[in-house]
């Protein structure tokens, strides 16, 4: 029973990561209707920056953590402005190609600058088992805690601040938002910045578990996709719930049914399954196009 509980809890910890990645994807999707294939590599690169700040810069973990989030935010903002802004009226294929281009560039740059050797990423949490319970560890508890804090902050930001309201308006109805004086382009760039920042949090939390290397996010991104689709790609709350469901399901199934070897294939099956059975996801809106 305790082993089972542990699987559930590890699942929640992993689910927190997936939920963050899914949330980052959903933020960009709701604003631009594009799925950001480079999200994982952006997070990976940000994590490398965090690693460099700690290892090369000798900073304290939390200082580096916050600094990385700020850098990731600026990076995401800049990418939207420089790379994607000029493409906003181009066909979908061009934009997917640009995303793949970004994916490849970040992957190559990380390998070029930091090397391809696998690195350990420190955890800010104590290693001793909490509450004398050997089935839990502090890093998992910390991961869930940080994820929940991030989600609450975001919720508060979007619900309670004028800027959050402006961003929601820009995503919901760009034309009307522009008419009431909101700078829609700027809001999009801010959304990208926020998505990159959330991704970097996920990257820094997961790097301790999967170790840091330029390809570390591939599987996590796939699970992020699966979570976002499961929850409904246009619903931030749904994406978070989807992330936790996928995390728990993955861990329990992995431990008792299929083993860990086929993790990516499980994500593939999940993605295709959701798209076939319920394309709008659990909490998404069905999109009907008028012809």
């Amino acid at each position, binding site marked *: 029973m305790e082993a089972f509980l542990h699987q559930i809890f590890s699942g929640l910890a992993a689910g927190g990561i997936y939920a963050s990645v899914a949330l980052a994807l959903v933020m960009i999707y709701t604003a631009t*209707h*594009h*799925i950001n*294939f480079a999200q994982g590599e952006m997070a990976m690169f940000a994590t490398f920056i965090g690693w460099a700040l700690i290892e090369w810069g000798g900073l304290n973990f939390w200082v580096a953590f916050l600094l990385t989030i700020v850098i990731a935010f600026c990076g995401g903002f800049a990418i939207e402005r420089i*790379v994607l802004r*000029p*493409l906003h009226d*181009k*066909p*979908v*294929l*061009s934009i*997917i*190609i*640009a995303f*793949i*281009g*970004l*994916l*490849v*560039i970040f*992957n*190559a*740059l990380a*390998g*070029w600058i930091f090397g*391809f050797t696998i690195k350990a990423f420190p955890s800010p949490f104590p290693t001793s088992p909490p509450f004398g319970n050997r089935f839990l560890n502090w890093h998992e508890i910390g991961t869930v805690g940080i994820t929940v804090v991030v989600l609450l902050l975001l919720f508060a930001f979007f619900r309670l601040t004028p800027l959050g309201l402006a961003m929601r308006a820009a995503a919901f109805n760009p034309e009307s938002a522009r008419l009431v004086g909101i700078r829609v382009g700027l809001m999009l760039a801010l959304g990208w910045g926020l998505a990159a920042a959330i991704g970097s949090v996920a990257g820094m939390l997961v790097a301790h578990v999967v170790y840091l290397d330029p390809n570390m996010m*591939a*599987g996590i991104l*796939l699970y992020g*996709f699966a979570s976002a*689709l499961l929850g409904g790609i246009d619903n931030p709350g749904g994406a978070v719930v989807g992330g936790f469901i996928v995390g728990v399901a993955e861990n329990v199934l992995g431990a008792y049914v299929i083993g860990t*070897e*086929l*993790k*990516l*294939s499980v*994500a*593939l099956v999940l*993605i*295709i399954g959701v*798209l*076939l059975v319920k*394309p709008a996801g659990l909490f998404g809106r069905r999109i009907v196009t008028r*012809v």
Partner: protein
Amino acid sequence: MTTSEATAPAAPVAKKGPNAIGITIFVLLLFALPLLLPVVLPLLGGIITLKPNFMIFQLTLVIIYAIAILGLNIVTGYNGQFSLGHGAFYAIGAYTAAILMDKLDCPYWLTIPISGVVCLVVGFLFGLPALRLQGHYLALATFALALAVPQLLKYNHIEWLTGGVQGIVIIKPDPPFGIKAINADQWLYYLALVVACIMFWLAINLIRGRLGRAMIAIRDHPIAAEVMGINLTVVKSMAFGISAAYTGVAGALGAIAIAFVAPDSFTIFLSISFLVGLVIGGLASISGAIYGGIFIQFIPNVADAISKAAPWAIYGLFLIAAVYVMPTGAAGLIKQWQAKRRAAKQ
């Protein structure tokens, strides 16, 4: 709908059939190349220090990549569906060939059509459900497929078949009928070239035929195409299947040429290479596949001299730059240049 902007040919060039004489000369030149290289290379006086055989091998790979990119072009360029997962079909083709040769002692030439058929079926079946998805979703599903394939190939319950992480070593075929005039590398080059000629000829006819026109109609306006009586599901799945078959044939040839398959040769980056070749070569262009093949074979060699990661950084930059400055790829640029020259003459 909007996809047609990117995928339609660049300029409304005056209608004219493909230059038959030019193509014949080009193909003859390709056939003569293995015999010319040993003569020409010494004349260049050490500018190219590669051994003729190695150059032949590289050219074989160019041809193989061109076939794969042609396959991707059929589904993405002509049918307007995004696939980020064609590396998976390349892997299936390669593994089919390798397993047939390794376990069943199947003659190597027979594995090529078999791989094509296997990929046709797999592509069609994957296509049937996936094609209900549009745009981003199909890209997403195929992206997931490409990521999952290396892991599936390593799966230990099928290790007896796939050789697990170790992969399968196969024997490089010798020229048939005991011909001594050409060596194994030259023979493989000819094999790939003949297969490529057949595949390109088929593709040209496919695109001009009923199915090809239906595919293009679906790309340009799915609703109008459906109203005109085109069965969207069947045509889209067929396009996906045929495209997968092309890539599978290329995979089988690749396995025979390299004489080795292993899961880690078929990562997501293989699929991305094909996409790079497609975009740089030219969307919805038959000849673009050749430029794309040349690009993905030779640019990494050049860039490798700078750093291990450099080829991919350069690929990425080229991808993004291509979206901005040459959405129709190399083939589009050449077409524009030809049209300009023709206009100047008149």
